[in-house]
């Protein structure tokens, strides 16, 4: 009996050892209750470039950036793992050669049968590529927001902002700030916000638009919304959005006429009723 039990245990340990040693993508190692490295595996060596004898007995904080060390991030993570049993997070870590990599980590606390902390197991993955891709996406998103909201000076004192694409909360905020600062920079008394390129307008976006108008009014400028498509007009009425005193025009050219009118600029008309400047 005793023999067979120990054989099972050893084969379990053996299996576990093979699993840890042969893991290519996961750094798996144990820590003491105070955060000192107890074991090391091949993947850990590959990510962090340290050999087992260089790290065993050293404190976990050696892999963290100086800034994170000062902010006591290690202590925070271990405290969280101790409190909740498990900590999951991500951050920049430092390799032996000083370069950084983005690590996704899980730290689990280990406790004995009395509930006393006996240490931690840390599982980490090098997610630098994923992180870099996410950064690129985020940067492109920002660039797209910038590019997709040009501010055009139509006339002395008249600005136009044609908005193309979906307006979400974040973009509405950016459009709002961009419009208001453009008003100051261009000394513009009238701004036309053209939303003919916006597919849908929900209550939240409508509220953002109204806030933008109100803020522009407080600064001493007038805002006109142009290009409200029929389906958007219907949605807004169904949603109960009250545009109140906000000026709306069907097209950009009508909005421009209105803007010129606000600035007391008269247009001459020819026989066909077309307006010329």
């Amino acid at each position, binding site marked *: 009996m005793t023999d067979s039990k120990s054989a099972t245990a050893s084969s379990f340990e053996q299996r576990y050892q093979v699993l840890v040693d042969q893991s290519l993508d996961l750094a798996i190692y144990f820590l003491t209750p105070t955060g000192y490295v107890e074991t090391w595996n091949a993947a850990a060596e590959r990510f962090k470039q340290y050999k087992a004898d260089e790290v065993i007995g050293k404190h976990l904080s050696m892999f963290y950036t100086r800034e994170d060390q000062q902010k006591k991030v290690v202590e925070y993570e271990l405290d969280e793992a101790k409190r909740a049993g498990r900590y999951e997070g991500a951050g920049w870590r430092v390799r032996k050669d000083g370069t950084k990599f983005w690590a996704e980590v899980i730290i689990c606390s280990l406790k004995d049968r009395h509930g006393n902390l006996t240490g931690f197991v840390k599982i980490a993955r090098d997610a630098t590529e994923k992180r870099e891709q996410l950064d690129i996406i985020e940067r492109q998103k920002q660039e797209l927001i910038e590019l997709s909201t040009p501010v055009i000076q139509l006339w002395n004192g008249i600005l136009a902002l044609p908005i193309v694409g979906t307006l979400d909360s974040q973009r509405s905020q950016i459009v709002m700030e961009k419009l*208001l600062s453009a008003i100051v920079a261009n000394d513009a008394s009238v701004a036309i916000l053209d939303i003919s390129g916006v597919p849908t307008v929900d209550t939240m976006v409508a509220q953002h638009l109204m806030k933008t108008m109100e803020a522009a009014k407080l600064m001493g400028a007038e805002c006109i919304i142009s290009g409200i498509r029929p389906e958007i007009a219907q949605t807004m009425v169904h949603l109960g959005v009250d545009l109140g005193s906000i000026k709306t025009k069907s097209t950009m050219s009508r909005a421009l006429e209105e803007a010129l009118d606000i600035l007391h600029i008269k247009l001459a008309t020819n026989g066909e009723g077309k307006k010329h400047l």
Partner: protein
Amino acid sequence: MSAEHIPIIKMDEFLLVTIQEGIHDRLAITLQEELTAKVASTGARGVLLDISGLDMVDSFLGRLLSTIASITRIMDAETVVVGMQPAIAITLVEMGLSMPGVLTALNVDKGMTLLRRRLSQAKEVTCVPDIKAIHDGSSDRG
């Protein structure tokens, strides 16, 4: 009594007040009182409140600006709040303080143009521009 005052400058038939950063509540109330008195004594037809130097307007100050505008309007002098910074405008709107009925302009020049235009429109409507101007402007024409 506070020894501090905010200077009130007379420009033709208008009064110009430049409110500086760091204004405290008592000084703001002093301004309201002194400005009201000055509108009465000069017979000014408009007031320009330049707040371009302010980096914050809370509900107290926002309300005070509205109150000044209401008081001067009763005294037949329109108030224009000029030069509000975008960040302040966004903040006031977010708080729900959009100062309805208060005239605004981007800067002092545009505020002055707005006041002049409103004044001339008012005169056109009443159809007695010359007499009205002589009566109302007698004390402040220089």
